[in-house]
């Protein structure tokens, strides 16, 4: 808050003016602007940098109104993307309320709120309720939602830029449309960090669902001081690859020791565990350094947050779990280890340091490999130029709509026409067609299958007046358990011993890869895996191990934004600027120029070379990981037809790498524009990307159950149905089912980036520079070490992989058991099992020169 240098503001009631004055503060202009908007009954979008009193600005009009009229009713609903943030804001808000002696009740309601308090909140709501999109959805699915929310005057959406454009944002938008129907006089306030696009957020807040609705005032706080960002190049050789950045631990530790309080941001949970361990190995001074990520037990995270708030920590190693909101005045340094991936995201993280808007935040970027040096450079340039990145708005998901419609029916009967109109007032659904709405509603009712098989299992029915009802209370109850749009991989709780504390959760497949006695690193500790018991992985403390495993979480890595990818390409294309880069990186790029060539914005550089018995093809497309994955799927299919026998591909944000049994010739033909031709649909449908997308859609839409850790493995196997099996059956029998449409829509905009790919193929036509090399090029090294998450999809390639693995295993047995005469009878029989008939192409065993990984 600025120091007082004028009279207490006349816009504020005396109690508030006095409160500001007593602290030697006066309100920011944007805080007063929000007050004015509220008095005019208008909604408002506040765009402000961190530290500009954003939260107080959002609540000030409500506090003023409630000070004047403290009649009991739920006046203001605050929605935050993070539970922790809701809790923290409640704490921060109570201080001024108590200091002014206001009788305003402030409470939180999240998934952690006990059942009895939730019930009490529905009966006697507080004036201000702080919640999350999921908890709001549950609240709105209750039959008494109307009574509880009828007096609502204001909805505040915090970190609105982090919600809009996501499925959680779709869900919240639908809930806000509902709130507007329940409390037509209520207004909305959106609090946003500095963003690239304002119009989508204005539309998101508008009660019309459109940017030109005219009911939302745009209020911008002045930009804060420019951040002070530097890049730290650790001593020793800059690694070619890897994203962990552990070699920089000594430098990071020195930075921590030299600052008051630091946040060390990393990009994945695995990286957080490793960096935490690496720092503690150096921590002879015993500086209090903590760990924070989304898989740790809630109590553990709350403890760390509290210690941080009280200034008892010197540093916390954190993932995006601390990206948003929580206000820790004491933090004076942010260290980003690994590439920042996006300018806006980096700015948000940097904003965690020094929560005073008029002082520069201090941040140090620590690249983990050579490509990341370029990326850090690009990010600093983007921030200096104010070139923020952000996605354009996209239509809301039909899976989220399906979930919402069942929730609405659970609360009260509705008429489809009225519901359609209400849904279209939510910005993501402003252009929803009646056909899509009706199909979604029918899916919720009876599955929406052409075969009318489920008449007696309908979840919804329509009465003679046309109102849609939920069939019974059991359907509604079951629905409430399924609310939410975050679909997690199945996880298991990690427990110390049979009775000990729960440390957090790891993904089930990680535990499946452990055998008793394995050591792994979790929650900052070295653990020994003891056994799997029900849904717990039991572990004991273990001494340091040379090669512990670290749980890796699916979807942990964020893709690089377009803006940064373009900037990296620009850096590569301007050798005159190389002098600014660290020596090793200069050397790397110089070598690339000598051995191959540097990519440039005009041409497409494609390198091919043999390595370890495989042939590699690397295309430096710079179109972002999603477009590269699609391209990888299409190219491998074409290569399969051409007989190159592709084995897999890896897509980074810059490069697509494909490996095959035989070398690819005629590169220009591979990349010809008709790549996006007729078999795109079919190929996409077969891909594991679509299968994963379908699983998420099916869970959100309520077709399949979430993983319930409560059920034992055997009963779960009998109850749950593998989403892949459903996907296959549905594709065969109802290719146009609304959930398949939703799946394709999700994939087309997020995961496949078809439009961008089409433009790319047109652009590079006739501009392919093929370098046939005899060995791996310097620029290709990081990509080859990169792990491909998306491999060649099911089909012949998978069969070939199995055949190779089988041959390997047989060889291993032969090695281990000596001459065949000594084998037990069954093994001999089994070996006689090897392919009896002439092999077809799909069953061709082991390509020549099998290698172990």
């Amino acid at each position: 808050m600025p120091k007082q240098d004028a009279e207490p503001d006349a816009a504020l009631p005396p109690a508030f003016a006095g409160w500001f004055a007593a602290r030697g503060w006066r309100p920011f202009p944007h805080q007063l602007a929000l007050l004015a908007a509220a008095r005019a009954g208008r909604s408002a979008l506040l765009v402000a940098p961190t530290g500009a009193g954003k939260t107080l600005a959002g609540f000030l009009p409500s506090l003023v109104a409630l000070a004047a009229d403290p009649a009991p009713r739920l006046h203001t609903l605050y929605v935050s993307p993070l539970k922790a943030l809701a809790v923290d804001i409640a704490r921060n808000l109570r201080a001024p309320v108590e200091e002014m002696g206001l009788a305003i009740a402030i409470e939180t309601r999240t998934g952690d709120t006990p059942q009895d308090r939730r019930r009490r909140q529905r009966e006697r709501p507080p004036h201000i309720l702080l919640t999350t999109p999921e908890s709001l959805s549950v609240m709105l699915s209750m039959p008494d939602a109307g009574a509880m929310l009828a007096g609502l005057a204001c909805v505040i959406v915090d970190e609105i830029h982090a919600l809009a454009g996501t499925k959680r944002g779709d869900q919240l938008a639908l809930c806000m449309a509902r709130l507007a129907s329940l409390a037509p006089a209520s207004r909305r306030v959106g609090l946003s960090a500095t963003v690239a696009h304002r119009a989508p957020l204005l539309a998101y807040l508008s009660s019309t669902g459109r940017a030109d609705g005219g009911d939302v005032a745009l209020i911008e706080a002045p930009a804060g001081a420019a951040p002070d960002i530097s890049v730290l190049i650790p001593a020793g050789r800059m690694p070619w690859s890897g994203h962990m950045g552990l070699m920089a631990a000594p430098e990071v530790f020195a930075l921590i020791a030299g600052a008051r309080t630091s946040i060390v941001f990393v990009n994945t949970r695995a990286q957080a565990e490793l960096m935490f361990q690496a720092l503690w190995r150096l921590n002879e001074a015993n500086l209090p350094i903590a760990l924070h990520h989304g898989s740790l037990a809630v109590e553990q995270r709350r403890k760390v947050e509290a210690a941080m708030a009280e200034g008892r920590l010197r540093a916390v190693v954190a993932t995006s779990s601390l990206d948003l909101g929580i206000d820790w005045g004491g933090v004076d340094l942010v260290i980003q280890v690994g590439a920042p991936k996006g300018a806006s995201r980096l700015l948000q993280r940097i904003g965690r340091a020094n929560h005073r808007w008029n002082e520069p935040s201090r941040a140090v970027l620590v690249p983990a490999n050579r490509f990341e040096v370029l990326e850090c450079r690009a990010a600093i340039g983007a921030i200096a130029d104010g070139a923020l990145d952000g996605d354009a708005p996209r239509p809301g998901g039909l899976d989220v709509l399906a979930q919402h419609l069942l929730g609405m029916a659970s609360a009260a009967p509705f008429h489809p026409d009225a519901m359609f109109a209400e849904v279209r007032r939510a910005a993501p659904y402003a252009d929803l067609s009646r056909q899509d709405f009706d199909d979604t509603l029918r899916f919720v009712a009876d599955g929406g299958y052409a075969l009318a098989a489920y008449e007696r299992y309908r979840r919804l029915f329509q009465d003679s007046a046309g109102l849609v009802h939920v069939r019974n209370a059991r359907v509604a109850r079951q629905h409430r358990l399924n609310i939410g749009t975050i679909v997690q991989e199945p996880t298991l709780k990690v427990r110390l011993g049979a009775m000990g504390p729960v440390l957090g959760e790891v993904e089930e497949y990680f535990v499946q890869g452990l055998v008793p006695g394995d050591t792994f690193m979790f929650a900052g500790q070295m653990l020994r895996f003891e056994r799997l018991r029900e849904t717990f992985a039991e572990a004991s403390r273990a001494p340091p191990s040379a090669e512990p495993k670290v749980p890796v979480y699916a979807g942990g890595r964020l893709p690089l934004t377009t803006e940064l990818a373009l900037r990296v390409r620009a850096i590569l294309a301007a050798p005159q600027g190389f002098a600014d880069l660290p020596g090793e990186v200069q050397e790397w790029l110089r070598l690339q120029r000598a051995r191959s060539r540097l990519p440039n914005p005009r041409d497409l550089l494609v390198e091919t070379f043999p390595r370890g018995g495989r042939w590699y093809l690397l295309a430096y497309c710079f179109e972002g990981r999603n477009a590269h994955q699609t391209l990888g799927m299409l190219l491998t299919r074409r290569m399969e037809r051409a007989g190159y026998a592709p084995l897999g591909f890896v897509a980074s944000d810059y490069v697509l790498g494909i490996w095959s049994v035989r070398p690819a010739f005629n590169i220009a033909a591979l990349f010809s524009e008709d790549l996006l031709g007729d078999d795109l649909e079919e190929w996409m449908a077969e891909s594991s990307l679509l299968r994963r997308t379908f699983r998420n859609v099916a869970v959100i839409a309520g077709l399949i159950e979430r993983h319930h850790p409560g059920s034992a493995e055997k009963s779960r196997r009998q109850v749950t149905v593998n989403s892949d099996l459903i996907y296959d059956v549905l594709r065969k029998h109802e290719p146009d089912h609304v959930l398949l449409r939703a799946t394709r829509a999700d994939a087309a905009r997020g995961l496949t980036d078809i439009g961008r790919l089409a433009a790319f193929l047109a652009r590079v036509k006739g501009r392919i520079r093929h370098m046939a090399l005899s060995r791996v090029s310097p620029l290709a090294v990081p990509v080859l070490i990169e792990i491909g998450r998306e491999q060649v999809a099911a089909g012949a390639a998978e069969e070939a992989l199995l055949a190779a693995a089988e041959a390997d295993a047989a060889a291993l047995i032969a090695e281990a058991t000596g001459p065949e005469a000594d084998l037990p009878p069954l093994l001999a029989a089994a070996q006689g099992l090897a392919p009896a008939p002439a092999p077809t192409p799909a069953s061709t065993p082991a390509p020549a020169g099998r290698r172990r990984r």
Partner: protein
Amino acid sequence: MSAAPLHMGGERLMLDPSGVLLWPAQGLLAVADLHLEKGSAAAARGRLLPPYDSAATIARLARLIRRHRPARVVALGDSFHDAEGAARLPRAERAQLAALVAATEWHWVLGNHDPAPPAGLGGAAHEALRITPFTFRHEALPGAPAGEICGHHHPRAAIATEARRIARPCFVTDGRRLMLPAFGAYTGGLDVRDPAIAGLFVRRHARAFLLGEARLYSFALAQLGSPAETGADPAPARRAPRASRAS
């Protein structure tokens, strides 16, 4: 599709990559865990799965019967997902299944999901069916004499290949007992390393035969669990220490 021979109890059995077992000497085809009407069972619980699973499962089975022309068919239990499954079977599927049953010597081995024989479909029902030297039983009986052929557990195995981990339904045998994979369209699987399955086999001799498109892939059970080769995406877990060595 090529079936693969397996010698057990002095008899020659054929494991078919579709997941059915053939015993040529007896003209017998065995299939486990059809779980017909699993979709409608889920629908009754509020999960409106596509109602096409029974049709898909019966059509696949009919194709295999046409191809192998068995004199006898043994359905190894859990042929229906629940006791009312047979009654829910849509008319067309019911007629198709009844025709299959009528055309051969059909044996329903009863399972935990379908403890009573399906009414009106024909065929003989058994708790366990003995055709020397084999005993066909739904759920393996621990300590049963050699020659047991069973289903129930839906065995599935995952193999770490050079590109990634691939999981498939599988046969499991140690030469004394043979477990069939589940055949039904919506049937999931249980990892063969789970004690519930692994505990039924002599580990030293146990092998899993993974179903492929045109053939089976054979692995020793002992080879499936080695810590260095498991995990859907094993490399990141191991890359970390590598990165630390680079420092």
